[in-house]
């Protein structure tokens, strides 16, 4: 296996007032150098928890990684010391967050914030870090970067701030770049620019990108492979074209049929999907059966009692009794 990052049977639990709930269950994903993995699903399906697990940023307590392994170049991150994780975070792997408006520290200049990321991982002096920060701002397409480096976040537009976030994330040429809904908060025209930028960065640095989104349009533009998540599990995984053209799981089909919404505002992450009635069930109410059963138009008796596992049925891996038994 020549995967750069490999997540294997990951189970993450949270202590809540309803007792311990499982936020991620048997999640396995992998991504190669230079590849883009799209992770899709509605909000609350576990996409962001997966990303935070990789970064070692799950709030602990209440959260904890109960089972499984996350391997970066063969090194198991779930066993790594906090000190080691600090060295990896921002160095080998970096993350871009959903909310550029609130993800930058309001009391430091953007130049300082990028320079800090550089100095945390490279042996350079402050002046050199500062020059590198300006060069990065230039690289991500910010005009007059030497002036802008002295700006505070509130002086920049949302798109500009997301470019700053990207500059900060790629400042140490990370091998893995996780982008969690990087364009959700931005205008549609800016979205396209950010995707172009990510593609350029990937070509230049050879990073693997994990793109987390609920927007199938973004997937069709960016992703090589796609994993569809629902209620903390991966329910379908394949090459992007395969999932887009031949979705197997009823949930994935519902998601894909939402694509015509592309072009106009794709809506907030919390929006109910027009094609699929209902919402993701709360995690503490997950039963023994398929988590999607209650919303599924094709529910069979078996679906309520028996949890389907991800396995290759026909076209590509999918977790659905209907697909497995061929009646769907």
């Amino acid at each position, binding site marked *: 296996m020549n995967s750069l990052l490999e997540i294997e049977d990951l189970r993450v639990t*949270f202590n809540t007032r309803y007792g311990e709930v499982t936020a991620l269950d048997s999640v396995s994903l992998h991504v190669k150098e230079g590849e883009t993995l799209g992770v899709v699903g509605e909000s*609350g399906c576990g996409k962001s928890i997966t990303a935070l697990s990789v970064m070692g940023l799950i709030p602990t307590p209440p959260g904890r990684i109960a089972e499984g392994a996350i391997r970066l170049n063969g090194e198991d991150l779930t066993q790594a010391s906090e000190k080691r994780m600090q060295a990896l975070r921002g160095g080998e792997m970096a993350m871009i967050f959903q909310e550029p408006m609130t993800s930058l520290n309001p009391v430091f200049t953007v130049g300082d914030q990028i320079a800090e990321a550089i100095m945390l991982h490279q042996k350079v002096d402050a002046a050199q870090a500062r020059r590198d920060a300006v060069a990065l701002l230039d690289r991500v397409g910010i005009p007059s970067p030497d002036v802008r480096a002295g700006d505070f976040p509130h002086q920049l537009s949302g798109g500009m701030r997301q470019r700053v976030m990207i500059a900060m994330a790629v400042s140490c040429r990370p091998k893995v770049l996780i982008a969690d809904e990087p364009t959700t908060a931005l205008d549609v025209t800016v979205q396209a620019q950010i995707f172009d930028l990510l593609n350029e960065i990937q070509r230049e640095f050879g990073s693997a990108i994990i793109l987390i989104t609920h927007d199938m349009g973004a997937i069709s533009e960016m992703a090589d492979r796609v994993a569809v998540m629902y209620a903390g599990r991966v329910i379908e995984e394949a090459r992007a074209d395969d999932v887009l053209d031949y979705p197997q799981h009823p949930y994935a089909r519902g998601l894909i049929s939402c694509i015509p919404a592309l072009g106009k505002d794709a809506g907030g992450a919390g929006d109910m999907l027009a094609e699929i009635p209902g*919402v993701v069930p*709360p*995690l503490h*109410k997950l039963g023994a059966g398929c988590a999607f059963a209650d919303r599924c138009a094709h529910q069979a008796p078996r679906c309520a009692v028996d949890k389907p596992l991800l396995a290759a049925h026909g076209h590509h891996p999918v977790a659905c009794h209907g697909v497995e038994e061929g009646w769907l």
Partner: protein
Amino acid sequence: MRDQDTNFQAESPALEAWRMFRRNIPALIGVAMLSLIILATLYGSFFYGGDPFDIVWAPQEPPGMTPEFPLGTDYLGRDLVAGLLTGGGPTLAVGAAAAAITMGIGISMGALAGYYGGWVDNLLMRVTEFFQVLPALLFAMVLVTLFSPSLFTIAMAIGLVSWPQTARLTRAEFLKIKQLEYVTAARAIGARNKRIIWKVILPNALPPLIVSATLTVGVAILFEAGLSFLGLGDPNVMSWGLMIGSNREYILDAWWPVTFPGLAIFFTVFSVSLIGDGLNDAFNPKLRER
């Protein structure tokens, strides 16, 4: 991770707050302590008897030496237990009255400023800022001295110097609430300003104001004690602050005449603040999850 389960029947907020409060053990301890203190100051002297100003024994009798005077006597030979039992009444009364005056002025100022906005707001807020510039205790001292100390002037003085914070809080609540739909609706059906202020907005602004009123009682009690300690209490009324103030010169000879009234003040304010914190938690259930 959010709780999306909203199936349960919505309850009235007051009832829900009461449920939260009932489960808050520190707050219940506060209620019990305060009730005990109030009962003791109301009925204690009835059972115990004795005028706290009477000189009944040798001066500075240490506590526990004479069975008749379990907490000893002060520098003049006055019974400390009698002082503690009668001295609580004025302290609590002034505290409550001063808090009422504080809330009265503060809520009126804040409500008018927040509701009308514009120049009314501007003017009232400048007045509020002006009062915040005056060091409260010093200003109260001046007022009490000029108008001669009595329980009434003391309560008035404390109220006059303490209201700005309440005014700010009320104003902030009014600014927030006046934009809500039900206020617009009340206006749409032709309710007058006076009615909207007192009958529509104020009831909805009550939770934080109730919390603030509770804490204000505590502050006012401390204030009264401070004034009495400085010799600005009503000299004809025994109070805890007066007990500390009059024995202040002799603390190095006798620790007990100042220690017990101080403890009494502490436990009163402590119970009040436990209740205040409990109410705050009860009205803001979200904060409790922290």
